[in-house]
């Protein structure tokens, strides 16, 4: 089961169907079960039963989540793969020592792959949908796997399966979410 985390400003908001719903449909199509939680409803110990976690995006005006860094501390000890999308990438970076900087992109943008990555479309470049008013200075040691003319577009932890994408893969880049789902499946031969 994959946990989808809603980062919108309140549970069950009008943004939920725009930012959680489309990701949920890709996860379902990939054959995975999912459930969703609002970020403020997740216990300090983190979710117990997920095989993977996707932190979903928010509306352009909605940076409420960034006022609650303590609500994401559990991510430091996450023992399953995590994918942060847009606001989710920002939360993931913040909790691991990164920082946010103003950077607005709206609409289709060319993303350059700077480091081959299991989740990203094939390089050297692909088109992706952007909707953000802040971008990330990645945490120390994290690998930048893609950039646009404006900001870092994708990062990953050097050792653990923690990924962030600034673009919205649920729009025209379903493959990112599909590959993440594959990564969360128990591998043949593993305990």
């Amino acid at each position, binding site marked *: 089961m994959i946990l989808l985390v809603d980062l919108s400003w309140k549970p069950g*908001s*009008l943004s939920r169907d725009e930012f959680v719903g489309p990701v949920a449909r890709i996860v379902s199509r990939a054959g995975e079960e999912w459930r969703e939680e609002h970020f403020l409803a997740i216990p300090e110990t983190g979710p117990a039963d997920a095989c993977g976690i996707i932190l979903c995006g928010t*509306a*352009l*005006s909605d940076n409420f989540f960034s006022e609650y860094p303590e609500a994401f501390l559990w991510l430091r000890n996450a023992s399953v793969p995590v994918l942060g999308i847009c606001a989710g990438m920002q939360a993931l970076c913040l909790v691991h020592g990164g920082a946010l900087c103003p950077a607005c992109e709206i*609409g289709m943008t060319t993303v350059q792959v700077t480091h081959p990555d299991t989740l990203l479309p094939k390089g050297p470049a692909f088109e992706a949908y952007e909707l953000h*008013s802040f971008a990330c200075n990645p945490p120390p040691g994290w690998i930048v796997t893609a950039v646009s003319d404006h900001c870092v577009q994708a990062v990953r932890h050097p050792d653990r399966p923690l990924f962030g994408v600034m673009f919205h893969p*649920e729009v025209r880049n379903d493959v990112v979410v599909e590959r993440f789902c594959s990564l969360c499946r128990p591998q043949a031969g593993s305990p």
Partner: protein
Amino acid sequence: MKLGVLCSGGKDSWYACYRAREKEEVACLISVRSKNESSYMFHTPNTHLVPLQAEAAGLPLVTVETAGEKEAELADLACAIRTAMVQYGIEGVVTGALLSVYQATRVQRICRDLGLWCFNPLWYTDPDTYMADLIAAGFRVVITGVFAAPFSADWLGREIDADALVDLRKYVRSHRITLTGEGGEYETLVLDAPLFSRRIAIEKAEKEYANYRGFFRVTQASLEAK
């Protein structure tokens, strides 16, 4: 949060309005009447009926006319949204965008420039679920324009009910239309919705059709009790 809903009179904008009203306060509708029937941004066949729909829903309406030229129509839309901010204190805009990155991007940019929230509650929704929900929720929707094969003249004015949905699903398979008409294959007009206190009765309409392209233009309509 006070919201203004962009309204073309078709099913997507009214369903988005319905969803918005479940969560927040819809303070007004915002309608752009384009003189260009090929507008990239705005649906055109029956926008003159939006005032009647607004009356049925008991919602104030901000209307702006545009010549429908590509970038000028965006300035006209921004002007209408700004008017809604001043008159009704809206803090955000709701659209019925389903898949159109072109439309969504442009409305998002206008909202950013005006410091407004932007909501797209039907964004990348599942087409089958959406169309079934629309009918189940009590929306009465008729087709007011067809622009693709294999739509015949019989579709002009046809209600999207369960039977029509079966036919549309066949066309999805046989002609690769989008079920929702998002690809511009057809346009719609909402005659009744759960948030209407009265419904629209079409009294006179004209059909025009040739080569899989046609219009159902309502020339006279009124409100009747539900």
